[in-house]
């Protein structure tokens, strides 16, 4: 059976793409952010996962309001990145893993998740940037399975539902007849708000408590409604749902391998966590 080696979560601010393209990682503004990834790369070099299952939210590249899924799972042989309209560089396509995709899809529908299945799918910065942050050198070495959660249009799925999705994805991976090693990624957050008079809102105590809870008490955040999460974390901070799903996919208790938290990157409190199952 396949093995989940751990869960990685990170913010995905589009400006990161520009900073990478321009080689600004060591400039004072960016250094505290990029340096956070160094220990995780060492961990990845040691565990060498074959596949990454990525929980992320599309920002209006692949999905529009004519067909807006709550949960969408990719089942394509490859995923193309494309122009998002504001000129961050487009990355080469990412390898898919249709066999694992379909295994997950079959298990999720069996477990009464009403997913949308995508045999062709453009992936935006929320999918591509974490992969580039964790594997900065050359082509991405892992095959990928994208799992997209709607944060564009209300009603959003509750934290409880996203946690159940993550758990079901984790159980699907663990039941997959393969000796592959899988890493689960959650891309989004932490607290930020781009829109309205409240733009610039950041909630440091909430973010730190949330990061801590993923290790100590993973369902802590499910006590909040989506409305309360927006209040605490901002309209885009609700992307923390991706972290929650990724954490829930990792079975049992976890140990924190590494973490980072830095204010601000762009308008965002940028967080990062690497978790591994307690053996």
């Amino acid at each position, binding site marked *: 059976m396949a093995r989940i080696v751990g869960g990685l979560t990170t913010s995905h601010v589009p400006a990161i793409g520009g900073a990478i393209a321009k080689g600004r990682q060591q400039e004072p503004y960016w250094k505290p952010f990029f340096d956070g990834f160094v220990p995780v790369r060492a961990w990845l070099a040691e565990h060498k996962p074959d596949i990454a299952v990525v929980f992320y939210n599309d920002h209006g590249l692949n999905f529009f309001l004519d067909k807006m899924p709550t949960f969408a799972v990719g089942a394509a042989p490859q995923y193309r990145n494309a122009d998002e309209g504001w000129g961050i560089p487009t990355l080469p396509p990412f390898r898919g893993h249709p066999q694992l995709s379909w295994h997950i899809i079959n298990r999720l529908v069996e477990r009464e998740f009403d997913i949308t299945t995508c045999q062709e799918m453009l992936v935006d910065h929320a999918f591509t940037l974490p992969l580039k942050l964790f594997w900065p050198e050359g082509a991405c070495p892992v095959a990928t399975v994208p799992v997209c959660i709607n944060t564009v*249009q209300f*009603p959003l799925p509750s934290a409880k539902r996203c946690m159940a999705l993550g758990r079901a994805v984790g159980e699907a991976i663990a039941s997959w007849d393969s000796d592959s090693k899988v890493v689960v990624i959650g891309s989004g957050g932490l607290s930020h708000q781009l829109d309205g008079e409240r733009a610039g809102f950041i909630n440091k105590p909430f973010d730190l408590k949330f990061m801590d809870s993923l290790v100590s008490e993973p369902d802590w955040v499910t006590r909040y409604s989506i409305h309360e999460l927006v209040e605490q974390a901002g309209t885009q901070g609700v992307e923390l749902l991706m972290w929650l799903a990724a954490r829930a996919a990792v079975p049992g208790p976890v140990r924190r391998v590494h973490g980072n938290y830095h*204010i601000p990157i762009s308008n965002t409190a940028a967080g990062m966590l690497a978790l591994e199952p307690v053996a």
Partner: protein
Amino acid sequence: MGSNGTAPIPGTTLFDGVQAQKGYALNKMCYSFNDADNRATFRFDEVGYMLRYGLSPEQIAAIRKRDVLALLALGGNVYYLAKFAGILGLDVQDLGAAQTGMSKQAFQDRLVAQNLQPASWGGHADARAAQWQESLAA
């Protein structure tokens, strides 16, 4: 009242069914800006492009004025509006400054100052959201 009967969050419009209905044409236009040709066509004739997408007169006026708060009120979704901002060469801090009525520098300074927040969580009824409102009112 929000669409699910909860108290509104000050300075925040949730993009729910009510907003999604108002903003469909506007958002569809902004979604089209993923394509470079469409961005060029829009730049060449903004009003003609907007009319083809069926924007309302209010939406057209708000696009002409680059009035982000008005666009949000008229059903614009921040994820799609960001593509319009991209055409104008504005980043999210420009947008933040415009929406809060601050200079870009002041907006950036305030972001950096967020780091001074306490690291400890105040419990279920965390006061951060309320504090933020007070700081805005001050």
